[in-house]
């Protein structure tokens, strides 16, 4: 495998990995927000002001 093909491969892998990192990172952030809301809603129901 020549140097050009190795670099092409590395750049392609980087693009795919970064795409998934962004998408899954966002999904994880949404999941955390969802869990936080459930916790807040539970706390509000148990301790009404």
């Amino acid at each position, binding site marked *: 495998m020549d140097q*050009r093909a190795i670099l092409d491969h590395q750049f392609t892998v980087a693009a795919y990995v970064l795409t998934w990192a*962004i998408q899954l990172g966002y999904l994880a952030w*949404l999941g955390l927000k969802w869990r936080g809301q459930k916790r807040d809603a539970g706390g509000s129901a148990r301790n009404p002001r």
Partner: protein
Amino acid sequence: MEPSLHLPVESAPPAPSYTGSVPTGFSMKKLAIGLYAAATAALMVWGFYQAIYVAPDEQTMHEVQRIFYYHVPSAMVAFLFFAISLAGSIGFLAFRRNRPDWAQAADAWALAGAEVGVVFCTVVLITGPLWGRRAWGIWWTWDARLTTTLVLWLIYVSYLLLRRFAAGPQVQTLAAVLGIFGALDVPIVYMSNRWWRTQHPAPVFGGGEDSGIKDPGMMHAFLWNLVAWLAWGLLILALRYRVERRQQRLAAQEAQEALNA
């Protein structure tokens, strides 16, 4: 009419059942969401397989051209979600006085569309330079397509910052106006490499006889990835919408509790 507190036993409303239709409906909904998520995951795997192992090697760019199968569908899905944000923003402005419930739902769609659109647009702005570095020898150039895409991303990031940090009763209205003006950049981005001479490759669709994908194998891989990313995008869009609606309900509940205190 005041509800009677002394209903006869025969006419009393039935006690809520927690073993009948409610849990079944809930389970059906969860099942449908689970099936959709599983189908989306399968599509993503299939799309990846098509892009990496099935699509033929491009003659001049070779392997790095395969970035295209993630880059272009991400751009298309981002455009779609910015259009949803535009519709939500218009809906909010239209319903905010007469139909507050509809206005809140429209606002949630506007926010969800903008946020998920920014996620996809970020993917576009990262995968594009990675491809450009190998194909052109540079990470970035200030040509019309790249610049208008960056401006689009900045507009929607400013929309999200406004939603996050501004306070007061006018935030939703201001955000809706910004969302409408931001969406005006979408057709400019789309048309930029038709209107101006750019370094960016020709459009995949609607760019004339010399542009587009000629190889059927490449077209298949592209279409599978487009469907997969659309399915994925709709899944996280729906989730983001649900989160925002719940946030609105919690905020309304807190406001009501503060008033009652």
